[in-house]
């Protein structure tokens, strides 16, 4: 039996070493501890995907747990020829898209920032950190305005570096549909950023004018 070794360090910034297919085999045979190893190995990419799609940590955690449970339940249907990460992220994407459709509008809470967004007191230039955080939040709020499927496509493409065929496989779309949605989403995001910048510069100009008066 071919045993594939996991090395998630390059892709997810964390080193996870083990025998993925062995864990999957054991989990399929009902070993919950083996599945727990898989959860441990993939918690970061799955949680990040849910956070990017749902916009807040609370919903993201619930969605990630539910996605893992769905994977656990359907483990027997998993095709070993397919990448386990892609399969797992596909389950999480479908679940999050359903959640977004149910919720309609998604908002990102700026009070409840996840670990990577929280202010680091040892940072040498607090203004720079704050402006970076503001920028990240601005981008996330722009992404949040996209339709559920477009948002999932953008997240999979830019945070996970999925190819068009990987995205089409994960979201059950055709490759041409993924391409046209990607184009539309990029255009929408760029257009919204331009609008925001114009609005901000108009406000700044008005403020300067009132200051001079």
């Amino acid at each position, binding site marked *: 039996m071919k045993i594939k070794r996991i090395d998630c360090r390059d892709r997810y910034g964390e080193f996870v070493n083990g025998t993925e297919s062995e864990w999957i085999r054991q989990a399929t045979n009902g070993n919950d501890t083996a599945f727990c190893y898989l959860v441990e190995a993939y918690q970061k990419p799955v949680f990040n995907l849910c956070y990017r799609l749902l916009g807040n*940590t609370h919903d993201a955690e619930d969605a*990630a747990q539910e996605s893992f449970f769905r994977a656990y339940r359907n483990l027997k249907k998993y095709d070993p020829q397919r990448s386990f990460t892609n399969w797992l992220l596909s389950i999480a994407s479908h679940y999050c898209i359903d959640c977004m459709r149910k919720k309609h509008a998604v908002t990102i809470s700026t009070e409840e920032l*996840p670990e990577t967004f929280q202010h680091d007191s040892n940072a040498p230039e607090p203004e720079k950190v704050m402006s970076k955080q503001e920028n990240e939040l601005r981008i996330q709020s722009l992404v949040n305005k996209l339709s559920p499927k477009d948002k999932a496509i953008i997240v999979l493409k830019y945070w996970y570096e999925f190819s068009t065929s990987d995205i089409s496989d994960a979201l059950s779309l055709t490759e041409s549909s993924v391409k046209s949605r990607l184009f539309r989403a990029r255009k929408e995001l760029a257009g919204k950023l331009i609008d925001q910048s114009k609005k901000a510069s108009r406000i700044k100009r008005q403020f300067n004018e009132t200051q001079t008066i």
Partner: protein
Amino acid sequence: MKHKQFEKLLLNFEPLDQTEDDLLKTHLSSCQRCNDLRNAWNSIEQNIKSDPMVNAPPEFISNWEIYLVLAKEKRAKRTSIALAGSLLVVSSTGSLIFYLTSLSNFSISEILSLIFTRLGYFIAQLLHAIRGFSSLSKAFPIFLPISTGIGLSIFFMTIMLLGFWVVSMFRIILPKQGVV
């Protein structure tokens, strides 16, 4: 200017041939709108790429273990409810047959033959209706599509209403963040 054509070249990220590349460069040198679009997208892409993966909360694994236990319990509960429901249906059908046989001195075989006779009668009536329907459609060719349309719309409306009712019942009964 044909902005759409250049927007596609700018945002599709397909490899450009020499002619397309030259056209795009010429257009960008004179079009502020397309330049803004390109700069805006570049800024977004740069921000997304520099945005790190968000870590799961530290208690994620322990929460998962609890979630798994609760979800399994919930699933087992649902399976037992479904099993009890099916047992109830089977036993009530059995009791009904038993009640009918004891009450009316009919044997089980007689009741079954009665059911099959009724079923046969129903099928014969249905066939008769279909034959009548086809002769009517021969006489009036427009009758078939209109009546089929009306029939199908009534059918789908009923199914849809039934679906809405079932979904709303589920939404009332099941908790919002339930496990499937």
